[in-house]
């Protein structure tokens, strides 16, 4: 329980610290006028908002990633009992990772790690 309180106060203190740095500055010229608000393009002005249905070119990788990342949930407890369980633990995790590695190899063969 004390552990938990400590997280909270560490977090709050750090937040205050960072916020103080950020806000301690002089508040001269606080408001940006319309010409200043134009996003930087090296002189040009954009026609549209930059917020858009952004084409993240690596989207197959992210899907592969969330499936592959689940294995972490099994690996952490495995790491704790690894020495106690010995060869058996190594074999089981080896099998598990080998299965998932097939997925990575397959994704690579299908070009999931390229910019689409």
């Amino acid at each position, binding site marked *: 329980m004390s552990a938990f*309180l400590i997280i909270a106060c560490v977090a709050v203190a750090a937040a205050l610290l960072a916020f103080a740095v950020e806000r301690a500055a002089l508040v001269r010229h606080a408001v940006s006028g319309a010409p200043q608000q134009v996003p930087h393009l090296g002189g040009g002005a954009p026609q549209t*908002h930059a917020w858009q*249905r952004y084409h993240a070119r690596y989207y197959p990788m992210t899907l592969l990633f969330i499936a592959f990342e689940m294995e972490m949930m*099994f690996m952490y407890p495995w790491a704790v009992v690894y020495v106690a369980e010995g060869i058996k633990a190594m074999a089981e995790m080896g099998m598990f990772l080998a*299965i998932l590695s097939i*997925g990575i190899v397959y994704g690579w063969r299908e070009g*999931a790690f390229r910019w689409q």
Partner: protein
Amino acid sequence: MTILTDIVFVLLSGFALWTGWRVFRTDSMVRCAFLLMLSFIAVGLMMLLMAAVYIGVATVFMMAVEMMVMALFMVMFMMNPAGLNPMWMVHQHRLSVAAGVVAFAGLTAAVLASTLPAEPLPPGRPVVRDLGTELLGPSMLIFETAGVTLLATMVATVILSSRRGRFGDAMEGACPPGLEPGGAPAGRAESESGGGHHHHHHHHGDHG
């Protein structure tokens, strides 16, 4: 100390419920995904309060990543992803509210009415070690099945999302949106060059 625990618990549960509710009340899809993440983080911290030191922290870990990916896809496929214009895309609203309230009321009533077995977690129990032993011993089959399921998921996602799938070019049959539902493609009848014309670019990421 227990009073303190209770206060923190109330604050966290309030936060989890409020952020969960805000998920469906915000216009920005990025905020929406990260509000859900905050709800998960609050639940993870509540688990930590209940001495689930592994599951609690791991929930934060997993959900941060999943909601990051969620945000990417929401921005990709939802129109007006930043909520520059207010959005209201709901149907059967009253029914849904009623269903939500009924579900909450029903579950709460069931919880209050039933007598739940009370066998609290003994202090000092090595919960992570327990889990590891369980995974490698009695639940070994579940563990390996999960591996196969995840592999199947990986393969399925690649097949479904990749353009160069095994089953031909996904561009085949694709057409731009119609001016009316089911209508003719909008405003690009003469520009058929989008797919094949620049074919030499498709394989350019082929290095590495």
